[in-house]
């Protein structure tokens, strides 16, 4: 059964990348300072040791002043940045630019999981209300209960700001649902409309390949053709 002669038949792409991890564990750098810097960069998400080395070598070629500026920018970003007292978004002041903007509808709150979602929705330029960043979603399995999230501040906001509509823009999964139901339950006696972003067939997606649940949801949440066309 063992026919080593046949190994050459194995498609090349299948066996590509020969043992990158082994090789890099043995990476020998002549300087501890260099090695420390590489290790720091490699801690960043999506950066492996190889890329880290490339970035560090690039910095090494720059002027000292330029690299100092780079370092200071990072430090300042971390020490000076604040989180908006009202919505939890990143901010340079106690209240973020979105909350402070009088042109935005302050009675409309879009509830998101994290700051990245705020950026994603802002990039669409389709939303002119405010946000509320939960800082996660409810998942007891991961040790995240309602008290770990900015839920109380949200219910307080709805009460004091006389919010008219709460839009949930959470990921369409079970924990997202749990979080929505939980908050809904907490605020059910308040006169605030609750909606969620539509879930359904992705634009450019093909019906045939959508799973049954998505297709069923799209049918339930169907739109008048007029609004469908104008939304495209």
């Amino acid at each position: 059964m063992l026919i080593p002669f046949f190994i050459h038949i194995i498609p090349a792409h299948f066996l590509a990348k020969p043992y990158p991890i082994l090789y890099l564990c043995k990476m020998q750098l002549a300087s501890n300072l260099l090695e420390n810097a590489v290790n720091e960069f490699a801690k960043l998400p999506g950066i492996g040791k190889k890329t880290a080395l490339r970035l560090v070598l690039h910095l090494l070629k720059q002027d000292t002043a330029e690299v100092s500026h780079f370092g200071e920018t990072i430090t300042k970003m971390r020490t000076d940045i604040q989180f908006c007292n009202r919505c939890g978004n990143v901010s340079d002041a106690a209240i973020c630019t979105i909350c402070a903007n009088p042109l935005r509808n302050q009675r409309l709150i879009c509830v998101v999981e994290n700051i990245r979602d705020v950026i994603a929705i802002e990039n669409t330029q389709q939303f002119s209300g405010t946000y509320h960043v939960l800082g996660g979603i409810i998942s007891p399995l991961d040790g995240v209960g309602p008290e770990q999230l900015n839920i109380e501040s949200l219910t307080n906001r709805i009460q004091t700001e006389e919010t008219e509509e709460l839009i949930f823009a959470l990921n369409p999964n079970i924990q997202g649902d749990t979080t929505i139901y939980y908050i809904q339950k907490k605020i059910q006696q308040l006169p605030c409309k609750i909606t969620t972003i539509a879930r359904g067939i992705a634009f450019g997606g093909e019906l045939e390949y959508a799973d049954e649940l998505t297709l069923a949801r799209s049918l339930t949440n169907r739109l008048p053709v007029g609004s469908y066309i104008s939304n495209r």
Partner: protein
Amino acid sequence: MLFFRQLMLTQFRNYVFDSFTFTQNVVGISGANGSGKTNLLDAIHYLCFTKSYFSRPDAQNVHQGMQGFRLQATVTRQQQDFELLCILRENNRKEFLIDGDAYKKFSSHIGRFPCVMIAPDDVELISNGSEERRKFIDTLLSQLNEDYLKNLIDYTKILQQRNSLLKAAAEHNRLDDALLDILDEQLSERATNIYNRRNDFMQEFIPAVQQEYESIAGKGDEVHINYYSQLHHNSMQRLLRENRPRDLYLQRTGAGIHKDDLEFSMQQQAFKNIASQGQRKSLLFALKLAEFNILKQYKGFAPVLLLDDIFEKLDAARMHNLLHKVCVQQQAQVFITDTHKERLESAFEQLGIGFELVKLE
């Protein structure tokens, strides 16, 4: 029917690289102990279910000392050809492609290329705890209904969340009632869907199994089968509500569809207490053949049948009955393994059917 034309195995268990071509409906696979017969069947199972029949981690299937494996097959399903490809990368990431397109969710593959496997240890289905039987029923229903699988995956996740919440409540001596209420609602919704589906299905499945058993074993020892579920008499909402104090004390969910079972009995006694080994085997075959028939009926074509070492423990008459059933009456591709080439040959010749033999060294 579903037909495997070609199968290529790379670095999969004892295979470094091997390629097989099949042309007949009946394929006999012979070879000594340890020659890779079961592994070959499992490779086919992998391509139908995106995972091993023997619930072991993907990495254990990589040929010792190597990294990654690759399974590839050309199959024909109702006159249409498909290329199935399963790759375990060096970093243990699994990819599954059909005609070059990678699945986003492996669960969407389940049921498109159905197969039924019967392996020697499967009698555990009858003698072991209820978990094996639920797994059997779930595997079958998941192939029939994508929605069922989705509900099942959700149910399992919510159950884990609920149990974690019960634990956290005990640790911190404080419970968020509102959150538990919501998890109960979410759990109940899925449980009700799953229960309804199982219950409907049993009306059809139980008589089918009994009929198969009779045709393998002959009239005489009649098997009684009962679908047990706590949901027969109570809604899931009610079960959760009534059991809450106990659940909080035990820190886990004590009632629900995860306690369902199939109960077998013969002459008013538990089947596993009185049945002989041959009778157990017969019941196992009856369950699997009923599964095969139902899949065939729902899908409109015959699944692939994988029969591993079935010659052990069945008497000649039962064996002949069984082979006649699966090789002659069914339009299906059947893979049968045995250590004795001659035994396979003479069995097929007796039936007077076309077949091919693969001899493993």
